[in-house]
């Protein structure tokens, strides 16, 4: 079996044995039908995207070319549960430079969406999401900071509006996704 260590450096170990039973030959067609994923099959593994990716230059765990390859090979589970998917900063450098016109950043977005549907959401994103639901802010502003502002005579921060947010996230199904898949 394929040994996968979630999000860790092991992700980049490419010498792992692939079993044909781990591959879903239909996965690439599935992706190519979703807007943004159309050109997945055109990737010829040149490595331009990885060499240009600002995240890949700092993190050995993140390799856009590898994500595209795993998707082409149909390693669905491995791709979707990979935490490295979530490291993409959506800067679109890869898309800009890809000689084959593969929309790499879009494909990664498509994969992230699929991952969420399948229930793979990294804990940190869940924390962020629930913070938005609770306070209206992605970032919980510490009490200390609010006090400091008062001391300095700065105007108080606008209040978040979790009620209307809750309505919105309910409508678009975001809330359900999060709740259903919470472990």
């Amino acid at each position, binding site marked *: 079996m394929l040994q996968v260590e979630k999000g860790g450096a092991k992700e980049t170990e490419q010498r792992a044995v692939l079993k044909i039973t781990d591959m879903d030959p239909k996965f690439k067609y599935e992706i190519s039908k979703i807007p943004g994923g159309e050109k997945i099959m055109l990737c010829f593994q040149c490595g*331009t995207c990885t060499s240009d990716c600002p995240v890949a230059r700092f993190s050995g765990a993140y390799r856009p070319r590898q994500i595209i390859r795993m998707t082409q090979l149909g390693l669905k589970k491995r791709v979707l549960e990979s935490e490295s998917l979530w490291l993409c900063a959506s800067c679109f450098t890869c898309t800009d430079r*890809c000689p*084959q016109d593969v929309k790499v950043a879009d494909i990664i977005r498509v994969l992230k969406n699929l991952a969420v549907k399948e229930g793979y959401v990294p804990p940190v994103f869940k924390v962020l999401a629930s913070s938005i639901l609770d306070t209206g802010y992605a970032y919980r502003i510490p009490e200390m900071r609010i006090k400091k502002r008062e001391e300095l005579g700065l105007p108080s921060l606008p209040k978040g509006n979790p009620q209307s947010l809750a309505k919105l996230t309910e409508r678009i199904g975001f809330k359900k996704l999060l709740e259903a898949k919470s472990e």
Partner: protein
Amino acid sequence: MEANKSILVIGGGIAGIQASLDLASRGMKVYLVEKTPSIGGRMSQLDKTFPTMDCSMCILAPKMIECFRHPNITLLTYSEVKEVKGSAGNFRVKILKKPRFVDLEKCTGCGECAQHCPVEVPNEFDMGLGVRKAIYVPFPQAVPLKYTIDDENCIKCRLCQRMCKAGSIDYDQQPETIDLNVGAIVVATGFELFDARTRSEYGYGKYQNVLTSLEFERLLSASGPTGGHLLRLSDGRIPRRIAFIQCVGSRSLKGGVSYCSSACCVYATKEGILIREHNPECEVYVFYNDLKVFGKGFQEFVNRAKDEWGVKYVRALPGEVVEDPKTGDLTIWYEDTTENVTKNMKADIVVLCPALVPRVASKELAGILGLELDEFGFMKSKDPLFAPVDTNRPGIYICGYCQGPKDIPESVAQASGSAARAAEVIIVATGKEAH
């Protein structure tokens, strides 16, 4: 009918030269039209040629001179085809002979004029790396070895006229129209380079030490701007590491061409070996996506480059080249796809291998000839399998790079093929083999 025994060949590169020689030796009358002041084409710009590593000019020059001397060949250099009417067996052609402002009969090729000409402009033959005068021969082995005044840059100081002992300068020369009657036409207009500036991430045109392969070929050549000394253009330093980037604009579905230019993997290997020959201390890296070396003896050639010459190959298409403005040194960012690791490497010179594309002007020529072009602008074959040198117009044949990507041996073979097809038209029209 005498007119039907003649054939027009358009383009004086290796393909056009070979087609002309084949036809002439079969007793056909050939008009070889070349746009620039000399025949020779791209091959004359090359230093050595793969896979034999012959000196390019040494094997080309005798063929060029034979074209000049052959009683059956009329060279029409600095000329262009303006109109073609009629059909196979009887084409009526109008050719524009541009004024050279030098009398071809009188000019002895001594070069006295150019020595005194005060105007210097970038030399096309050296891809702009060197300079020439406003009165010039493109290169020392030019055929014909006659000077030409470049009207655009000449300041009409008349120094050349005073210096020329043969009295060959004639500022009053006018464009001339030549009418020809030919039985068949062979087109061999070759290729040009994809504009590497459009791949701005590699910095061509911005960084002085990023060159195209053809510029680099001139830099290697003994007849080039540095006299064959392999130096860096920015500071004249001897390079210690040179990197090639393959497929710049080739095999690309975005802002490039989707086909493989087919010569670059092998010529990069050739240039790599030449670097090691020049200076064994200088490292050579070839960054490739796939090494397409499919011709006879080519894989062996690459193996030798690796094993005997120490040329190193890295499977990666680099993402960008960054210059250190203080030193002119370059850093190449790439993912070594065999290791899955993002790396960077310093190099003194980066050589880009741009896609080889049909000449822009060949579109106009195709219009004049009534020829169809393919999606890339190459002259379209009547049938890619069984009639590769035939076109949609009977009596007009194509060969060399203008028909599609190929190297010199293939260009020569195809030239002979198109010459044979053109000769058939003449034989049918005259009812017998010409003698």
